């Protein structure tokens, strides 16, 4: 085994540099959007502190022995579930969701931490399967690993994060090699659940499509019946869940179905976000010069709507730079995932990629008005300590895997 002592062989600058630029842009945007805002005093300082902590976490994770990643998968998952249960009991309620655990002046979101636990355990489980996952039992176990945290997060309730979980679990399963039927079994309940939100007609129609598909797969009656029952249950579960949701979340779902239905209410953020981005123009209004941002047209812009501040103050150029940095990051992660020989580590890298990508997709899509308002932060850019630390922790894992990639035959 040849050992290359060049630092770039152990440390992937193609990941580290884009992420660091994103972090710096994020800090600038947080500074701009919290300036003169009485509701966000010290937010910039807090974010700066969280960023320093996050980088320390990143380098520590980078340095640990690679095989310890696998060892922490089960305890990490169990700890995640315990924390998610704890937050439901003693969590702090912030904007309608009980998602915060407070430790004195610090607080963090267990659901962020649970992403790591879930990715690791799911990768661990899938690695034990030699072939594609096409047995019903394997699918059920895989789904169970995902659904326990998703269910707990939905109880908070935090729609956005649940959606992220569903997405990255699906991408991990896909990477492992789920069959067409398997993908159908996993995806169909989700599609039925979403259709049920639009009313009974789309709900029934989606069930019919499921029936036709089951007929096409020509499996035995027990299998088909079970899958259909799961679909049916998913639809009703969604309906019950919708009724159990807080009014502000119901309103969000309503505005997802028709965003312009209430321009001053739930559609307000969406419209103001688009106005902010669109009015930025090609070169932007300049740092601290965006009137939408500086006059606080969008509530808590420094969290989920941070991309508005960038689009408004740095314009098309700034917005495109951010998109491009993410593109470089994603393609690089995909490359590492596909070149990593170890199956577990490869699945972990894809899981991390999936988490970043779904956050990016939902967040930017929401800000530029092509996806409904679902509150998820933009990785490395949005304000939020937990998310920053967890994202850098995951990046540390990826970098660790990169460091030792040549150790596996």
């Amino acid at each position: 085994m040849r050992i290359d002592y060049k630092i770039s062989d152990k440390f992937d600058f193609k990941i580290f540099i884009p992420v660091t630029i994103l972090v710096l842009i994020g800090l600038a945007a947080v500074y701009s959007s919290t300036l003169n805002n009485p509701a966000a005093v010290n937010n910039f300082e807090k974010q700066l502190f969280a960023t320093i902590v996050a980088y320390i976490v990143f380098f520590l994770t980078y340095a640990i022995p690679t095989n310890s990643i696998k060892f922490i998968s089960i305890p990490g998952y169990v700890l995640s579930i315990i924390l998610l249960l704890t937050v439901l009991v003693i969590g702090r309620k912030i904007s309608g969701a009980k998602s915060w655990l407070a430790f004195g002046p610090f607080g963090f979101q267990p659901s962020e931490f649970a992403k790591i636990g879930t990715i690791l355990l799911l990768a661990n489980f899938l690695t034990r399967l030699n072939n594609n996952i096409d047995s019903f039992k394997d699918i059920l176990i895989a789904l169970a690993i995902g659904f326990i945290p998703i269910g707990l997060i939905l109880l908070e309730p935090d729609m956005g994060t649940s959606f992220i979980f569903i997405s990255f679990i699906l991408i991990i399963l896909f990477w492992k090699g789920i069959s067409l039927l398997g993908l159908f079994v996993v995806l169909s309940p989700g599609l039925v659940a979403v259709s049920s939100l639009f009313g009974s007609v789309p709900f029934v129609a989606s069930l019919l499509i499921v029936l036709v598909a089951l007929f096409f797969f020509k499996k035995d009656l027990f299998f088909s019946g079970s899958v259909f029952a799961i679909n049916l249950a998913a639809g009703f579960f969604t309906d019950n869940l919708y009724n159990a949701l807080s009014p502000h979340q119901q309103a969000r779902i309503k505005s997802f179905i028709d965003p312009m239905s209430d321009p001053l209410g739930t559609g307000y953020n969406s419209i103001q976000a688009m106005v902010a981005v669109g009015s930025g123009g090609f070169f932007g209004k300049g740092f601290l010069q965006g009137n939408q941002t500086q006059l606080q047209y969008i509530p808590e812009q420094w969290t989920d709507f941070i991309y508005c501040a960038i689009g408004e103050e740095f314009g098309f150029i700034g917005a495109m730079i951010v998109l491009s940095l993410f593109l470089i990051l994603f393609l690089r992660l995909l490359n590492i995932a596909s070149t990593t020989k170890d199956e577990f580590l490869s699945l972990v890298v894809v899981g991390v990629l999936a988490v970043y990508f779904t956050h990016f997709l939902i967040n930017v899509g929401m800000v530029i008005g092509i996806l409904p308002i679902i509150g998820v932060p933009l990785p490395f850019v949005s304000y939020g300590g937990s998310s920053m630390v967890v994202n850098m922790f995951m990046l540390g894992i990826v970098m660790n895997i990169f460091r030792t990639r040549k150790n596996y035959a």
Partner: protein
Amino acid sequence: MSAVDFASVNRKSILYGIIVLVFAIFSVRLFQMQVINHEIYDEKSAGNSIKPIEQIPLRGVFYDRNMNVLVDNIPAYTLRITPAYYDTSLNKVLDKVLGVNPGFVQSILKRNQIYSKYIPIRVRRGIDFSIVSWLEENSEFLPGVDYIVEMQRGYPYGVMGSHLFGYTKEVSAQQLEKEKDYYKPGDYVGHNGIEKQYEKDLRGEKGFHYVLVDSRRREIGRYKDGQKDKESIKGRDLILSIDGDVQKVAEEEMRGKKGAVVAIEPSTGEILALVSSPEYDLNQFSYITSKDFLEELYSDPDKPLFNRATMSLKPPGSTFKILAAIAALDLGVITPSTTIYCGGGFTFGRFFKCHGSHGSTNVIHAIEKSCNTFFYNLIYKIGLDKWKEYATKFGFNQKTGIDIGEEAAGFIPDEAYYKKLYGENWPRSIMASLGIGQGEVSVTPLQLAKYVALIANDGKTFKPHIVKGYLDNKSGEIIPYQFEKIDLNIRKEVFDIVKEGMYLVVQGAGTATHLRNPDYHISGKTGTAQNPHGKDHALFIGYAPSENPKIAVIVVVENVGFGGTHAAPIAKKMMDAYLLKDKLKNQKTNTVQPVIAGAQVED
């Protein structure tokens, strides 16, 4: 289906494709929003956060010809309601506090329902300071209720001028529709009189201050430190031709009477005074006019809102004899020495009586004595159409075009008119009455004023007008407005003859000898317009000094009888006020209090 698909090239390509596709879609969308449709969003963004605040300029004031301030602006408190934040259960409380009839506030809110509920509605102007303090004390219980300081019209010289100045009121929905570029709901516009006619001069130009507002529309500060602000421009201060003292005298003299008075400077056509009586109190219009006040004015049988000076149509009576005399002399159908015998009347089909037997009379004495017989005869010599031609020359049968709007044209008949009415053989006896200004001839007091001015100034004057010009705020110069010149092209000798007659009316053995005075000579002509509905209307036209006319006056007093008795003395008092201004002032300072003279000095 292969058994192991883990991390296959296929699956990598699919993920790669999804990532690149999302990147592409987002890029296109950003390009569309930030480059192609940038301006739409930019406009929305600017509209969002920059709020223009209107700066209402001071309305121009009115000076009289001696630079006394007749109309100015005085600060007043206005109570406003912003319906979006207002609780209608407060209506009753506000009604009580404002001391208005129950339902007043509600009716105002209802009237303004067509506008955005975020626009404050002016409920009442000129509220008392005690109400303002009450508002301040209870502001927390009065959501959506506030007050602002606004300018309202004041009349410091003690001149009513109701039909002259006119009043301002809140812009109507129709006018708003027509001129939405300038006016906003709640703006005040001139509704009649000079206020209306010179609205565009008086209103000035609105300014705008731009302020930044946050998402809750709270003001945060000036936009770009006020660099983009546009300051309002004060309205033009108008210089009226009115003489405040003459106007005041006329108003005092006409108080309690119905009728109209117009005084005019013959050489310029400048109106020195214009009164229509009864008048109404313009101060009432400075407040949000309670419906009651307007209704009261509308239902008053004396019609105070009706501008008698420019709108009321009456036969001119004997004052019209001058016209016939001028026509006859100018046409050459008589000479100054032509005499007509008056035996107490005139027969043409029927008998037309005179008020005496004047014997052989020439035109001068016919005017002096107001001999009907002479003029009965004269109109036949002139001919109806020629007579109308002269009447038209003098401005009858048409609007004078005075600069206060509303005006009637009057009526002068001609042959075609009677032919249409009675056929080819219309009774020529009708003409006799016209010769003495009775019958189917109707004129306005203003037309008569122009007529006297033309006589006094030998057929030359300017279109009657009330506004001379405006004061340039920068240079302090008076910029005159231009008015059309009128020249009848009638020989001066003709005027000399009729003016001698008019001189004798007062100075000779005429019908208004009681106007004679030691200070100056008055020339004039009395008249009595027959009124089929009651007592006759008294008329007087005249000018002074006879030798060099500086003021011409026309007085109409309704339903009182003979012109010499009831109308002429009012004219005399106005002439005194104008011609003996200095003398009268000295008298005042000597006899009353010296302080008053000081108080009248305007800066």
